[in-house]
């Protein structure tokens, strides 16, 4: 374990541009990622609002946006998925909070490669702009969904938006992959090389473990997606046939031969499944941190939590085929993928048991971060338990590509991950901005959001069982689906209310940034290193000191200790670990 070498230190910049725009400071870059994700999440949420109102009032002409056509609906869903998965669920937990907190939590002055860090943010930013630009080109944004299955995504004549819009979409994802690879390298190196004296791997907060494992997943997954995307661009623009066999679109024989549409699915999901864990692992880390802190109790089974995350990461790379049970892939391999997928349920269950075990016989304080961590556990359970349905190929026959799947992944990697982000925001806001967020607004926001998300996503499971296929812009064409419209209407109203409630959060965020009560250095009475430094932390994080770590990360309620928590840097005692 190396202490931070002086070579990493850089003086605090003075000019505005070097300080806030092209900053090398991981804290500023973390905030840049955070605000990029905040912008993206509101764009993505607005698109989902348009989708929900279109499904219920398909012919309504709206002010400004006009009528939403079926192809517009498909563009909205493509962009919603892409923005949310890449620019929110990957960007906020890892790029945002990981960047800001990882170096501080391990006692380092900055990330290992500050310039690379700056580059990875600005590359991500360019990717986002390129993605949004797809809305404004001829033909509009692509309609092939966030999974972009060829031949639909490979042939410009296959639908509106499959021209320049689709090229921009692929380019944006390729740019994002490059940015994420840079970020992943930085996170891994920082974790391995820059830990403070005494900060052994097994003394790292579980948040650091989650960012570290996420970075490893990112390093292995994004390279594959990048290659897959480049092949797709070649198919589209240079006449290759990696993914496209001999096909006839609108009566015209295409100039392709011999490609395999399934090749894309294998490559895409080889990335796509680990991506699910890239989105949710940091949420698991934050939930663990917050649950322990606010239960005033050590995390239950620290080692089991670490091994469970490692197991999830490991198995995460062996289950991509469960997205392809109905694709024409060999039914023999489906069976293997099914068993391996069920194996992932085991470490997930361990984590849930341990979270409950952490709260058990604790003294729970209900500040807003804790409410979101509890909500995270509830959503993780609900979203997780639909997994063993989808993991069985024989049940997937009925459920694949229905709303059951949409409900499943929204609960587990969508909203649960978002709850992780909310918990992180409410928890670290005092450290990042030096002020406290308003608790009353936080609670109102939490209760509406938890009830609202269940009201939106739980009915999707019922719809899926009844055979409601996903990605339908209207439900009137299929008789059995038309009967399900009342449930869809209910979900739309729930979505409108839940989306409206998010403005409470935004108001609280910006109001508290300037008007909230000043935060102390350790307002939650927490133990990890970020709470040992000033609020907000100085440029080099610890004001010239190098912290020395003597304890594990979650030493709460230690018998005989002077207060109910022992910080990681507190002197060695006989009772605390």
């Amino acid at each position: 374990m190396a202490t931070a070498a002086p070579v990493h230190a850089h003086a605090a910049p003075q000019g505005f541009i070097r300080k806030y725009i092209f900053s090398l400071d991981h804290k500023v870059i973390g905030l840049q990622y955070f605000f990029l994700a905040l912008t993206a999440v509101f764009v993505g949420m607005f698109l989902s609002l348009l989708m929900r109102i279109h499904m219920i009032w398909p012919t309504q002409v709206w002010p400004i946006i006009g009528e939403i056509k079926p192809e517009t609906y498909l563009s909205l869903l493509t962009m919603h998925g892409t923005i949310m998965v890449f620019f929110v669920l990957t960007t906020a937990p890892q790029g945002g909070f990981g960047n800001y907190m990882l170096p501080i939590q391990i006692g380092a002055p900055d990330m290992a490669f500050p310039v690379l860090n700056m580059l990875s943010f600005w590359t991500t930013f360019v990717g986002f702009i390129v993605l949004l630009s797809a809305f404004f080109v001829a033909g509009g944004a692509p309609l092939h969904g966030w999974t972009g299955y060829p031949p639909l995504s490979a042939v410009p004549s296959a639908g509106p938006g499959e021209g320049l819009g689709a090229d921009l979409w692929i380019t944006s994802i390729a740019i994002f992959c490059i940015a994420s690879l840079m970020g992943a390298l930085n996170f891994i190196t920082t974790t391995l090389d820059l830990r403070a004296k005494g900060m052994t791997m097994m003394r790292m907060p579980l948040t650091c473990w989650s960012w570290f494992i996420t970075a490893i997943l990112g390093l292995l997954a994004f390279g594959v997606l990048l290659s897959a995307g480049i092949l797709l661009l070649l198919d589209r623009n240079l006449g290759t046939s990696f993914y496209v066999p001999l096909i006839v679109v609108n009566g015209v024989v295409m100039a392709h031969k011999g490609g395999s549409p399934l090749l894309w699915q294998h490559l895409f999901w080889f990335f796509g499944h680990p991506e699910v864990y890239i989105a949710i692992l940091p949420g698991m880390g934050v939930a663990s941190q917050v649950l322990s802190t606010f239960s005033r109790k050590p995390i239950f089974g620290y080692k089991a939590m670490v091994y469970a995350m490692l197991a999830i990461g490991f198995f995460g790379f062996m289950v991509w085929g469960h997205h392809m049970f109905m694709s024409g892939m060999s039914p023999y391999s489906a069976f293997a993928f099914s068993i391996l997928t069920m194996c992932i349920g085991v470490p997930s269950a361990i984590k849930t048991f341990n979270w409950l075990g952490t709260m058990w016989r604790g003294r729970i304080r209900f500040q807003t971060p804790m409410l979101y961590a509890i909500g995270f556990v509830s959503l993780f359970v609900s979203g997780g338990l639909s997994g063993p349905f989808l993991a069985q190929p024989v049940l997937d026959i009925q459920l694949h590509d229905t709303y059951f799947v949409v409900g499943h992944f929204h609960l587990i990697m969508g909203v649960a991950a978002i709850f992780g982000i909310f918990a992180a925001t409410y928890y670290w806001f005092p450290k990042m901005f030096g002020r406290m967020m308003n608790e009353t607004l936080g609670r109102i926001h939490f209760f509406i959001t938890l009830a609202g998300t269940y009201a939106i996503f739980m009915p999707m499971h019922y719809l899926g069982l009844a055979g409601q296929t996903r990605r339908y812009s209207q439900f009137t064409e299929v008789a059995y689906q038309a009967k399900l419209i009342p449930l869809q209407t209910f979900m739309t109203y729930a979505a409108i209310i839940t989306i409206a409630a998010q403005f409470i959060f935004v108001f609280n965020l910006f109001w508290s940034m300037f008007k909230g009560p000043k935060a102390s250095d350790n307002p939650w009475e927490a133990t990890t290193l970020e709470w040992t430094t000033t609020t907000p932390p100085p440029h080099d994080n610890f004001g010239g000191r190098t912290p020395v770590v003597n304890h594990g990360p979650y030493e709460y309620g230690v018998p005989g200790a002077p207060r109910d928590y022992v910080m990681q840097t507190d002197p060695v005692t006989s009772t605390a670990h």
Partner: protein
Amino acid sequence: MGLALLLLIWLITLTSTYFFAAKTWWLPVGASAAAPWIDHQFALTFVLMGIIFLAAQLGLGYIVWRYSAKPSSPPVAYTHGNTKLEIVWTALTAILFIGLTLMGGNVWASQRWDPPENGAVKVEVTGMQFAWYFRYPGPDGTYGATSPKLIDPSSGGEGAVGLNPSDPSSKDDVVTGTMYLPVNREVDLSLRSIDVIHSFFVPSLRFKQDAVPGLNIHMHLKPTAIGDYEIACAELCGLGHYKMHGMVHVVSQEDFDKWLAAREAEKQ
């Protein structure tokens, strides 16, 4: 606050469970030989996952209420976990989850590993933006040749699937826009697509399979109840995806023979 959380979590849990248990929205009535097996596996999974769901969520609600910090709360249990417990719940979950998959494995194998029974009715399903076509090989039992160059979606029927009229075995091929199947007979399906990926989904028959361009995917099923069943495309295939709809009419063997003979007669 603990009580408010308990009430909300319990309310969400019990409401969600009620609609599953009451089957307010549920699988359509099954009409194929595989349906009872699949539905049994569904029921089993629902019961097991339902128990875990209720235990975990109700437990979560209880714990946050029971262990709310009060001035009178006892000191917390200073514990870093319990290895024995970790091993027990790891083993139990592993056995439960993997066992569940193995139990469903037979149904999957019979559906997708085994070949169709002898004497199965042959039907070819072709997907295209945004319609389904069904081809019956006729008395010779052999599908005639097709060619991409002959495909003309606007012509419908034989032209849409690119049937080559100069091939002798194509003379008696019947191509229709609606699927007819005889009841209680095995059906040997070939699934094709001429443009993008589609997915042939008939909820009542518990059947779904993607139709992938470049592949000819063989599947089999056996309808067991006379009736009309809707087909919905389940793989995003373009702007008309939502209206790529079709019908399967399951009829008696007698009616099926009559229907097929009438189509053959029309063709001559």
